[in-house]
């Protein structure tokens, strides 16, 4: 292992990845740690403008009816050679077929390995849309759909559509340790996985055989630091070159100091308070509205986001064309809240849980603090709240099984289409895949969301989404709180790091102008 302070970078991340295969997990921690380090996709987004550009597919054709896609694959692409695997062949069509069939077909030998849930693809219902994936020759693959889908190519460019090595998978299956596929990852990406220790670090080393000329640091270490104050301290001492999610209260400090740099971008996200509608008394819309009425959103935004966020009325932020400026929202009205609770027959001193996510996210930089604020508001209307928090991966597993009462969490969009908010957050399909935290399943809503995809006319779609908004308003499965800015902080000498609006962090343009020597 070569150590050279100029050529190495330490990135302080906020949590442990749930897996080393982003197919299995939509958490942005997982995407950051794997998607653009270990793997490549058939297609990529240009981080500048969001256009789709070639990845492992050097070119592609779409048939006139929009049903058949043919991808020409790049030749001579090598999978990683590591201490646990040495590839015998280059990347070819078999790897593409393996990677897609793994999540598409529940008969695939690898489908159940790792839990059998592929949250991103499942929540979009993508497995139902694909008719077949066929090998034409070693470097040409054909994918046929049942119906045209204008977002299909974009889905193949998201963080989750990574290409795995079929050869490695077969070898593991033969050795009887298939779960290694998602723990000791092999991809074609710009960095090779070296090792990982929970709550400590992930180490990557540059893949010198990557099909693009290698650039960026030779070695990358993810220093897993759960506390944002500690990340800030490490940034100041230079133990971290860049940190994820600086605390809102430290932002002004970072801007003032000449040795630090703050990166910011308006985020395509929403932070919300979700109610578990499958559990009484939260199955009663009046109770949910009462809870939403009891909390003063303005003070949450003041105290938790320190004003670095826009008050949310609905699911989509104002940057999206589907935003409804005249949308209705529930204001702060504890008197009305109390009335509603009495009507619903909720006893005084009713006790409930608020699950507060343990990690920081742009959409909710401090869920714990927000939960404490909400707790006080609930006490005013005679509800006693307990705050629950757990390790992030266990937390999300528990949410998927639906044992929570209410939860403070949010959603970061993977692309600019409003469907990416409406469908994963509240559709029925998204309950088993674990992105719908409210367990709210409303056929009328699902019909509206489906209907909105059938047309390309923006005005029509906007009307439909507005109808969905009023349905959400009436039913209140969740209380939208804020759309927040996204932040990252780096040392001043680091250049080329950008907030990637389309998914996980990337390091290929990162360089260091001069680093203070470690020996003085």
């Amino acid at each position: 292992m070569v150590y050279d302070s100029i050529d190495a970078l330490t990135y302080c991340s906020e949590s442990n990845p749930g897996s080393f295969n982003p197919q299995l997990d939509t958490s942005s921690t997982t995407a950051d740690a794997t998607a653009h380090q270990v793997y490549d996709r058939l297609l990529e987004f240009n981080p500048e403008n969001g256009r789709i550009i070639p990845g492992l597919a050097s070119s592609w054709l779409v048939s006139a009816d929009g049903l058949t896609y043919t991808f020409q694959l790049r030749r001579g692409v090598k999978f990683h050679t590591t201490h646990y695997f040495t590839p015998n062949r280059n990347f070819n069509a078999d790897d593409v077929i393996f990677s897609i069939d793994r999540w598409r077909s529940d008969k695939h030998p690898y489908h159940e390995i790792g839990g059998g849930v592929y949250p991103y693809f499942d929540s979009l219902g993508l497995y139902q849309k694909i008719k077949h994936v066929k090998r034409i020759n070693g470097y040409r693959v054909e994918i046929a759909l049942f119906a045209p889908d204008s977002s299909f190519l974009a889905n193949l460019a998201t963080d989750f559509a990574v290409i795995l090595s079929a050869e490695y998978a077969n070898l593991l299956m033969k050795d009887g340790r298939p779960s290694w596929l998602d723990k000791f990852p092999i991809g074609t990406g710009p960095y090779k996985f070296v090792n990982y220790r929970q709550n400590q670090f992930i180490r990557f080393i540059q893949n010198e055989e990557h099909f693009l000329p290698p650039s960026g640091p030779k070695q990358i270490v993810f220093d897993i630091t759960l506390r944002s104050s500690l990340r800030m301290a490490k940034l100041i001492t230079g133990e971290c070159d860049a940190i994820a999610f600086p605390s809102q209260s430290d932002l002004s400090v970072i801007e003032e100091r000449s040795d630090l740099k703050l990166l910011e971008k308006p985020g395509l996200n929403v932070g919300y308070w979700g109610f578990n509608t499958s559990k009484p008394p939260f199955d009663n819309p009046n109770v949910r509205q009462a809870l939403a009425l009891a909390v003063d959103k303005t003070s949450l935004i003041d105290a938790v986001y320190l004003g670095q966020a826009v008050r949310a009325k609905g699911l989509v932020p104002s940057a999206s064309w589907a935003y409804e400026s005249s949308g209705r929202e529930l204001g702060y009205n504890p008197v009305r809240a109390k009335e509603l609770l009495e009507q619903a027959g909720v006893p005084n001193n009713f006790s409930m849980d608020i699950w507060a996510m343990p990690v920081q996210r742009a959409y909710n930089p401090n869920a714990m603090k927000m939960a404490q604020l909400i707790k006080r508001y609930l006490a005013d209307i005679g509800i006693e709240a307990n705050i629950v928090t757990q390790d992030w991966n266990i937390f999300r597993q528990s949410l998927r099984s639906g044992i929570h009462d209410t939860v403070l969490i949010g959603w970061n969009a993977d692309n600019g289409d409003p469907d990416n908010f409406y469908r994963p957050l509240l559709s029925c399909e998204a309950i088993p895949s674990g992105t719908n935290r409210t367990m709210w399943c409303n056929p009328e809503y699902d019909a509206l969301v489906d209907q909105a995809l059938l047309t390309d006319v923006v005005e029509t779609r906007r009307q439909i989404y507005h109808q969905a908004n009023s349905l959400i308003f009436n039913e209140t499965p969740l209380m939208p709180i804020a759309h927040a800015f996204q932040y990252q902080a780096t040392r001043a000498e680091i250049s080329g790091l950008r907030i990637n609006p389309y998914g996980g962090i990337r390091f290929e343009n990162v360089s260091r102008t001069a680093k203070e020597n470690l020996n003085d």
Partner: protein
Amino acid sequence: MQRFNLYQEEYYPSPLMHVWLEFKRSHIALVGFILLLIFCGIALLAPLISPFDPNLQNTNAILLPPSWEPNGTINHLFGTDSLGRDVFSRLLFACRTTFGSSIIIVFVSVIIGVGLGALAGVLSGVRSSIVNHLLDSIMSIPTLLIAIVIVAILGTGLFNSMMAITLALIPQFVHQTRTFVKKQLQKDYVLLDKLDGAGPTRIFFRSILPGMVELIVIQATLALSIAIIDVSALGFLSLGAQDPNIELGVVLSQSLDVAYVAPWLVFIPGLCIFLMVLSVNIVGEGFRSALRNRLSR
């Protein structure tokens, strides 16, 4: 001590008074004693003297600096925390929890420990060498370590952590009482009692216990300083008191998130723990040397 002496008798202060006179001679000990009294006062009167409800959140006034800073306000002596709660009021209540629970812990462990120790000493037939040895070995394990083990089993929370620390402190009192009682039982005055027909209960309460009080007090001050550190350490590690309970270690660990912009929020609660432990240690030290001086005269 000046007294009006009517009968021209020599004045002999009682042993306890003697200790107090010796204690008073050291100014440092006296300062520690006053500090300790102040903490007792806070523990008793926190609800009366705190200017705000310690859990009152005010999102219009978050992270106000302390009043001696240029932009601090006089309303909030030590400023406010990241939820706009008054730090001074929270500190008063936190001192109350930490100090109060430590006193309770020590009180309970003294009663149980002395009781068990006396029993073991008086009924000397029960003891077996192995049990005694195990007890000795357990005693040398730090109480905090035992408390962490017990909390891991019982679960976190203020009550559980108090129980854990109490359990961890008891062996020290058992050991000391047993050794003391066994030593005294061999002395002549106890034999005299026995010849007078006193039973073991009477011997213990009438003859041995009075001579043991000072020993217990010394051990109890030691235990008190350990208890304060343990309660706040468990709170700091989120293994002890949980959020609605305001405890010094909890306040300290909650402030870590804003440590860089509001370092005083980390500094002040720690200082409170430190002063509390320091005053207990100074008083304990003063008491010990007073006792030593009395005996050496």
